[in-house]
């Protein structure tokens, strides 16, 4: 067993070096494809920070002054519930100070200045309103009405803030997703071709191996490991790229004026490491797929 493992590793490494130009091409392509996949994840996550407060069909948010009295809050609540034909009363949600503060921490993740001004005591609480109607004019007129209630600080409408970002985010997601899928396919193709070339270069050896009774798996495994290694190295390179991109972006965002929304477009470090793990796994997977196809189809050389 040990002899077999040693053989497989030795052959993998030898073939890896022998084919350096093609190997580099395959590694770089997978790295770029994976980088794009990683960027897609990060962009989506960053947009989500902006969109988090509108999650679940919320179309209107009524912000309540932090110094409003419980009676004023009850009045607002009552007013909202007084329009059950327009507002989905079951989905009406009131976020108290603690919940509002937790949400703000996501929205202002890249904006420490604003975040430091907010405390659980000073933050406005909010009602999240899900309308039953599609009629935006009706919702807008309701919003105008709520603005006049005592204790209301502001009323925000999804139509004004959310939809542009949502459309933009959807567009960016589609473009990056399609591009990364195409590039992933190209990467698999290149790894496939590299392994096929490696097998062709060693067809005499493979012929002799089959002749003396080597099993197909014994012949295949070094080639499959080679593809796996290529994908994995591509994954490592893309991780470095994603990390560098994210650092540069976070640094740039910090320089933006607070409160512009751009500052929400950053991701927490934990999420970044998660993306990196996904990229490594994905790299290994494309390497394995490309080489497995090649190794099973071109054994009869």
């Amino acid at each position, binding site marked *: *067993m*040990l*002899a*077999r493992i040693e*053989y497989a590793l030795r052959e993998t490494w030898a073939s890896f070096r022998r084919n350096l130009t093609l190997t580099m091409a395959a590694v770089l392509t997978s790295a770029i494809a994976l980088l794009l996949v990683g960027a897609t994840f990060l962009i989506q996550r960053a947009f989500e920070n902006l969109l988090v407060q509108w999650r679940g069909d919320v179309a209107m948010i009524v912000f309540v002054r932090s110094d409003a009295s419980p009676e004023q809050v009850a009045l607002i609540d009552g007013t909202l519930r007084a329009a059950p034909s327009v507002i989905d009363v079951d989905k009406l949600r009131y976020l108290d100070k603690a919940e509002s503060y937790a949400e703000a921490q996501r929205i202002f993740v890249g904006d420490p200045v604003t975040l430091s001004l907010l405390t659980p005591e000073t933050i406005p609480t909010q009602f999240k309103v899900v309308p039953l109607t599609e009629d935006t004019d009706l919702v807008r007129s309701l919003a105008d009405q709520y603005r006049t209630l005592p204790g209301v600080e502001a009323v925000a409408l999804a139509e004004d803030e959310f939809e542009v970002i949502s459309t933009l985010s959807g567009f960016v997601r589609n473009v990056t997703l399609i591009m990364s899928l195409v590039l992933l396919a190209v990467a698999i193709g290149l790894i496939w071709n590299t392994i096929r070339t490696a097998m062709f270069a060693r067809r*005499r*050896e493979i*012929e*002799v*191996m*089959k*002749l*003396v*009774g*080597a*099993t*197909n798996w*014994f*012949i295949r495994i070094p080639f499959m490991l080679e593809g796996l290694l290529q994908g994995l190295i591509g994954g490592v390179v893309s991780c470095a790229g994603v990390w560098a991109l994210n650092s540069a972006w976070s640094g740039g965002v910090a320089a933006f004026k607070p409160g512009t929304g751009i500052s929400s477009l950053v991701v927490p470090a934990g999420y970044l490491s998660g993306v990196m793990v996904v990229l490594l796994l994905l790299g290994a997977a494309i390497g394995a797929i490309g080489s497995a196809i090649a190794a099973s189809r071109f054994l009869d050389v």
Partner: protein
Amino acid sequence: MIKLDGVTKIYGHDTLAVDDVSFDVAKGDFVFLVGPSGSGKSTLLRLMSREEVATEGDVWVAGRNVCELPPSRVPFLRRSLGNIFQDYKLLLNKTVFENVAFALEVIGKPRHVIREQVPFVLELVGLADKSERFPNQLSGGEQQRVSIARAFVNRPLIMLADEPTGNLDPATSEGIMALLQAINETGTTVVMATHDHRVVNAMRRRVIQLDRGLVVRDQERGVYE
């Protein structure tokens, strides 16, 4: 050890290579397959090592019906066979030692077995002092000896030789034949395809003559006609 029963092989749609051939080869036998080019000698050898599958009939090798062998079992059939060829099929980037060791390595034999067995067979074929040479630094006869060493190192039950003396001069051929005879004397069955009159006539062993895919003669202690 080998049994062919009504074996027919058609390549493509209509190229008849072997036509209803039946014969038995007993354990320890030495058999020449003779006949002109294209008479089906090589095809018979390839049927035995399962490089080809018979169109009709059964081929039994070492107790196994190779026609019905699932592809995953073919490597294990090959481990009981030793193949040698006219063009040696050596790996030019490996030394003599490595070429022979390769045959053990790729069937997963541990290193101590390799270190023990390879020098032993190289001694047997008379190349102990050339184990670090590369094939290009050897004569044709020496290269064929390496290929025989590689075929024999796994102690096969059967040696299949396809024109092993085809590229060699008479004196060198004699040496190769003496080696094959020595291997045969260890109990290994040898089947050799050839159209080399001299070696067949010198050995006086069983001769199966083929012509256009048909067996036209099967004779103990025969000669090439």
